[in-house]
């Protein structure tokens, strides 16, 4: 894969926004991969958690905001608990979701769910998925 790394991308306000919303220092990551090794959801992801951090450091905005991974992460905190550098990867992924959700780009279309579908799942599931996937 050809990857274009540029100073412009690295200095994009997008990178600062991720750091601000997540409260994490992206440059602390040294790519050991423990987050991805422990993540229970990697089989469903297109970009792995350690790659998400690398892409974020380099300002790969489109790749991150269009990825499936950010909607697959369940914030189970396995990555956070395993990171030897103390980076909260789940918070970084939350920041990426928030950047989209704050522009009303919802992932879950609750209005398209039928009454039966909504009744089928417990309130705890509906509320948490709306909290994570809607603006």
């Amino acid at each position, binding site marked *: 894969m050809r990857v274009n790394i540029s100073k412009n991308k690295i200095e994009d306000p997008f990178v600062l926004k991720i750091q*601000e*919303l*997540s*409260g994490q220092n992206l440059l602390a990551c040294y790519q050991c991969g423990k987050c991805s090794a422990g993540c*229970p*959801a990697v*089989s*469903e992801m297109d970009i792995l958690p350690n790659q998400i951090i690398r892409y974020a450091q380099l300002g790969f905005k489109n790749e991150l905001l269009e990825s499936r991974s950010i909607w*697959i992460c*369940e*914030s*189970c*905190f*396995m990555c*956070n*608990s395993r990171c030897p550098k103390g980076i*909260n990867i*789940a*918070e970084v992924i*939350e*920041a990426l979701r*928030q950047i989209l959700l704050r522009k009303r780009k919802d992932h*879950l279309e609750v209005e398209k*769910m039928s009454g039966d579908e909504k009744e089928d*799942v*417990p*309130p*705890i*599931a*509906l*509320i*948490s*998925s709306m*909290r*994570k*996937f809607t603006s």
Partner: protein
Amino acid sequence: MKLSYYPGCTLKNHAKNFEDSTLCSLEHLGIEVEEIPRWNCCGTVFSLATDDLMHHLAPIRNLIRVKESGSDSVMTLCSMCFNTLKAANERMKSQPEDLDKINDFMYRENVKYEGDVKILHLLEILRDEIKFDNLAKKIVKPLNNLKIANYYGCLLVRPKEIGIDDMENPTIMEDLMSVLGADPIDFPYKTECCASYQTVDKPEIVADRAYSILSSATGLGAEMVAVSCPLCAFNLDQRQKRTLEKYPDFKTVPILYFSQLMAIALGCPEESLRFDLHYIDPMPLLKEKKLI
């Protein structure tokens, strides 16, 4: 002993089996439980964005209700409520400027919040306050010859500042099951997430996860799996229907709340177990073991 109790949204419907079995067990242990008045949903997930204070209002409002009821601690059963309430409280304690802002927004509350309510999960209360030794003395029907895998999921043990036990290898549920007379089975998936709220729009992920988690447990000899979270219970029990459709070799297994197992051991009546809410009926196994 008297406990202030925060139920949360799902304990009053899909997880009524969790609530009823807990209340009956605590009654058998001579503990008074008082549900806090006017509680509201905690939001189910802790708000992770640094600037999102608004979503901490719901959990903190519940902690104000606890204070209003005259208590300085609150018991939760649901792992997600426990995590959300405790994490919000920890943030208020560590960031006083956030606490000020939250109190500003809640100017109509009569009580000002000060980060001074302790949030406890029932399992912690059983271990640290009631104590397992005292529980053991009240057991009338030990769960002999019952092999139980204990599933913690994520929010009961992570993150470290919130969790009730070691986050990599918790044993509190195994310890409880041993006290109840059962044989706890250790299995490697006990802290692996069940895929949580993905169950709403991506239930196929949950079906896959349930397959891995439950097959690991039964493969190691478990006859049932104990849980402590209504969302884990839904995903591991109700979603077994989908798991079976996708994986014909899947071996179904009953999922029980640890409180239901405690209720059986303490001699609570069958009505408090509410097995009508289960997809995989635990009755055949419990009858075979002469526990019902």
